[in-house]
């Protein structure tokens, strides 16, 4: 199928490379035997001039030249001119058919095959003098070298001549294959269809013929009806065996350093087993095919299934005809590239109808006729959908509708990774909708499921927020580039909606996280997912240019601060550090620009300062801290409040997460002391050494936090 990869762009380089090699070798030979000509050139000359009827047996000149050319051909391939000469020599049968087949067998082109030579070859072929074995060999040679033929327009214009051989029983498979490669829409004519049908009636359904007919149907579905059996054995055999290895070796040798871009083939995704197809057919992505042309379409329309490479796609982008079933676009990567450019509303609606119906039938109406065991196929389908949406960076509205419906009845475990991943693709929607269709049902599942599901939900929401922010960022930077397109007023409106939505989401996650942490007994994995989320939230201003400062709730901060795991505390340090950076830069920006629209509430600063005081007094000041933790500490968190009154036990030395390090540090400082007295670290000198020691352990978040927030001269209060 994928044989027509255009290689023209590296052909010239390969050629020049060959020429270079030839030049070099000729220069060398010049140096050695200045009077002797290039033997290869002489051999070619011999073949082009040899008269018909020259005896073959005992002809040393012929034998020597054949051996020489063969060696060159198998070694580095033949340049285009040599291919033309040798092909003409062989097919003219001037020295008989045995020489002909011998030449054909080593006719390995280095880079390209001139089209003219092939057309001449076909004309020799049509003269009918060649024995059948040579004809077959020639056809196989063309099929093998098809991709190397420099252009095919003339070959296409002698389509009719080639077609006439389709009735030949022996040649038919090869001719069909060649026609298959050459056929364009203009070639499909009723008389040819009729002829092929006749041949089919005579010879039965041979795979090559069937394949050719199938292509005809693809190009002109109104003339022919055919349906392929479910298990089609590969239509065309590979005819390249005599040349395969030699050609591969030559091409590899001649390949320039520049690697061509990977071919974007129409890799129709492997379908799962075709058993029970009838019952499960709704999960099958339809094949690319074009609709019946009952209405006359534009003359130059190109069908997607005819395209083989990305370059071809680009060339024909304006003439591509949409497939009969839009769902088929999901079947290949090339088609997805095209889908990205489709603006036709009804085409997208068709796609959404198809996709929505597949999802509904499979997951909502469960019309699986009672064999629910086979769950790999549905999850494969969902995976396909996920990767498609990832590629398009957008959510299909039908999958969005489906998800909203599905959430209401989801048990939280069926296809969990896929569903969560799909949920994260949901685009920003008005807050009320989001609350009703996503937040509410998801919350119920969250609180009734395991800690791993909770982590999954937080991660899903993080990824969702990240997608929204990225989208917004691209939007706004696009706006700056082209201000004339939109009035700033509408943007403000949407902006406020967007801000409201992001705020709602962050607060929602805050609620989920604080309650979840408590429910799961401060599970470390959930801790990290939560901090992951806030690592995104804290940088919203600097990274995404969104003036939004949403601090984590106390139910997240204090459990992280008092965690027994140093990495959690470290990450919290990093989050607070980034909040500070964002706030500082926002403040600067505000002072410079004095934009009225840019407003940061005082409360944000106040809240942040409180947070800072709490954290600093805990980690740094080893003295009873009078932290007003605010009223937002939930009643259930009262134990935390009482714990805070003991916060002198939570400075960097006595903190349960760092106790280990403090002891290690103590042992390093005073190796001879068996009595560990950690308070001795609180001396000014040792304190900073201790900090350095901690930083050297890789606590970068803590390092950023401390270095940016602490006056370096200050000592922990209570030190010596």
């Amino acid at each position, binding site marked *: 199928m994928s044989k027509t990869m255009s290689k023209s762009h590296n052909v010239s380089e390969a050629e020049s490379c060959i020429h270079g090699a030839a030049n070099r070798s000729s220069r060398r030979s010049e140096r050695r035997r200045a009077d002797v000509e290039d033997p290869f050139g002489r051999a070619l000359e011999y073949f082009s001039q040899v008269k018909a009827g020259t005896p073959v047996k005992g002809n040393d000149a012929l034998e020597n030249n054949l051996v020489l050319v063969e060696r060159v051909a198998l070694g580095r391939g033949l340049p285009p001119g040599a291919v033309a000469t040798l092909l003409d020599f062989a097919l003219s049968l001037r020295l008989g058919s045995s020489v002909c087949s011998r030449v054909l067998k080593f006719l390995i082109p280095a880079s390209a095959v001139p089209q003219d030579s092939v057309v001449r070859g076909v004309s020799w072929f049509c003269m009918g003098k060649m024995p059948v074995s040579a004809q077959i060999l020639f056809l196989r040679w063309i099929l093998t070298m098809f991709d190397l033929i420099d252009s095919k327009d003339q070959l296409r214009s002698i389509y009719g001549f080639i077609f006439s051989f389709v009735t030949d029983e022996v040649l038919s498979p090869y001719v069909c294959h060649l026609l298959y490669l050459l056929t364009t829409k203009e070639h499909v004519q009723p008389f040819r269809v009729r002829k092929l049908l006749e041949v089919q009636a005579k010879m039965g359904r041979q795979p090559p013929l069937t394949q050719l007919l199938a292509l005809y149907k693809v190009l002109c579905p109104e003339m*022919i009806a055919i349906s392929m059996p479910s298990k089609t054995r590969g239509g065309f055999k590979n005819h390249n065996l005599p040349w395969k290895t030699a050609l591969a070796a030559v091409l590899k040798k001649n390949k320039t350093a520049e690697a061509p871009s990977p071919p974007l083939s129409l890799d129709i995704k492997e379908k799962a087993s075709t058993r029970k197809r009838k019952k499960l057919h709704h999960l099958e992505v*339809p094949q690319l095919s074009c609709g019946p042309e009952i209405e006359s379409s534009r003359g130059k329309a190109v069908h997607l299934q005819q395209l083989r490479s990305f370059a071809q796609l680009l060339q024909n982008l304006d003439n591509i005809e949409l497939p009969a079933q839009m769902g088929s676009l999901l079947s290949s990567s090339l088609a997805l590239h095209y889908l990205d450019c489709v603006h036709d509303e009804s085409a*997208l609606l068709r796609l*959404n*109808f198809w996709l929505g119906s597949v999802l509904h039938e499979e997951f909502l109406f469960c019309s699986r006729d009672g064999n629910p065991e086979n769950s790999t196929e549905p999850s494969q389908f969902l995976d396909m959908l996920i990767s498609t949406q990832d590629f398009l960076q957008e959510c299909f*509205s039908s999958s969005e*509708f489906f998800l909203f*419906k599905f959430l209401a009845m989801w048990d939280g475990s069926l296809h969990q990774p896929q569903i969560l991943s799909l949920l994260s693709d949901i685009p920003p929607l008005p807050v009320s909708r989001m609350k009703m269709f996503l937040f509410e049902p998801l919350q119920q599942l969250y609180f009734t499921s395991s800690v791993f599901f909770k982590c999954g939900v937080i991660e899903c929401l993080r990824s969702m927020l990240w997608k929204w922010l990225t*989208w917004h960022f691209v939007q706004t930077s696009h706006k700056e580039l082209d201000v004339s397109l939109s009035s700033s007023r509408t943007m403000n409106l*949407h902006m406020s909606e967007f801000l409201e939505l992001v705020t709602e989401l962050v607060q929602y996650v805050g609620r989920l996280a604080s309650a979840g942490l408590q429910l799961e007994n401060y599970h470390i994995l959930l801790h990290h997912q939560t901090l992951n989320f806030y690592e995104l939230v804290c940088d919203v201003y600097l990274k995404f240019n969104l003036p939004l400062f949403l601090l984590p709730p106390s139910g997240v901060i204090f459990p992280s601060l008092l965690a027994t795991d140093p990495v959690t505390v470290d990450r919290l340090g990093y989050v607070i550090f980034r909040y500070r950076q964002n706030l500082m830069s926002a403040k600067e920006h505000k002072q410079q620009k004095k934009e009225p629209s840019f407003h940061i509430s005082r409360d944000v600063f106040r809240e942040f300062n409180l947070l800072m005081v709490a954290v600093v007094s805990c980690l740094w000041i080893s003295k009873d801290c009078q932290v007003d933790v605010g009223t937002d500490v939930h009643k259930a968190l009262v134990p935390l409040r009482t714990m805070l009154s003991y916060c002198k036990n939570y400075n960097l030395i006595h903190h349960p997460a760092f106790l280990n390090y403090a002891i290690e540090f103590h042992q390093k400082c005073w190796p001879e002391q068996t009595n560990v007295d950690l308070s001795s670290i609180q001396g000014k000198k040792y304190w900073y050494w201790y900090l350095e020691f901690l930083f050297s352990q890789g606590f970068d978040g803590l390092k950023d936090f401390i270095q940016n927030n602490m006056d370096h001269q200050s000592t922990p209060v209570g030190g010596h």
Partner: protein
Amino acid sequence: MMEGRSAMESPVTRLPTRRRTKSYGRSCFEASSRFAYTSGQLTILRIPTTREAPRARNIAERVDPEQVTLLIKNEWKLSYVTPLYRFRHTHLKKYSKHLSAFIAAEKQQGTAVEVGLETGYRVTFSTVLGIAETDEDAETVFIQIQSKPMFAATGDALKVVWSGWLTCVNGSPEYLHSLLPDFVSLPLFCSSGPENITVVVKSWFEKMFDCRFGSLGLDSTSLQWLCALWTGCHPDNNIRYLRLLWTLPTQPPLDVSYTVNPQDAWELWNSVRQEDSVDGTVGIDEVKHFMAGLESHFFRHFKIYLSSGTLRKVSTALGSAQQDGKVKILCSDYLATVLTLLTECAILKMPI
């Protein structure tokens, strides 16, 4: 699962909002459309709580009687179809040729068949004018497949092996309006004949008009509606019997067949009809009362709560309907009433 929900529990479908036009698009160029949810784009599909009371109408005045007999003869298996893309009522002849070639090709897989040649099957597409009730409804399309016996004499009549039709009666105007002009919505598909031909016909439609089929079952609320509506017809058109079939969730499942004298059924129905609804509509409350009356009567005799089971089948002399989506219409006078209800069920199944 969705079917299990009765209208009483959730008068609104699970997803009341639908966004019709904007789907997957390139947002980069049209920033506003991503957030712009104008109220016009949000339509609500509701399961109606009231319906028009059935009125006997001699449909033969509007529809060719021959075609009517085709519709009421068979038991139909119901499916829903998403809107057909570029379906034209003017191209039915071409579709006939295509479908017959397609069936022939499917029958002998791997063999190509020339379109337009005589094959073993003859397909006829025809429009049944007059079934549509409103201007928005697309005209009903009837498909008949006849086969030629292998060794038939030339004079032998063709045998009808399969028939089916696509229809839309009183389809939700909001839904039909929101479709783009390239689409024709004929959401209800009824088929009768061998399953393998149904599969081929469906796949032909899916390939030709980029639509999809799904089976359409009738939930108990729909069956109750039909039960009440048919009973209400009794004075005009003798229903002869009202037979209901329940399956109770016992081990093993218990099937209960409950046949009611038509006059008794009508009297019960008449008694639950509310005074203020004489203006030709029937409310869901009345239907529920009617069913509750039937069930409590059964309980008084057998001490079995029928409401704990599922209603599987309703049949009268006017027609019958089953939970798995098999419907038989025996009296053409109430065709519109039944088809309106079935169209509505089909539209509720639409994915977007």
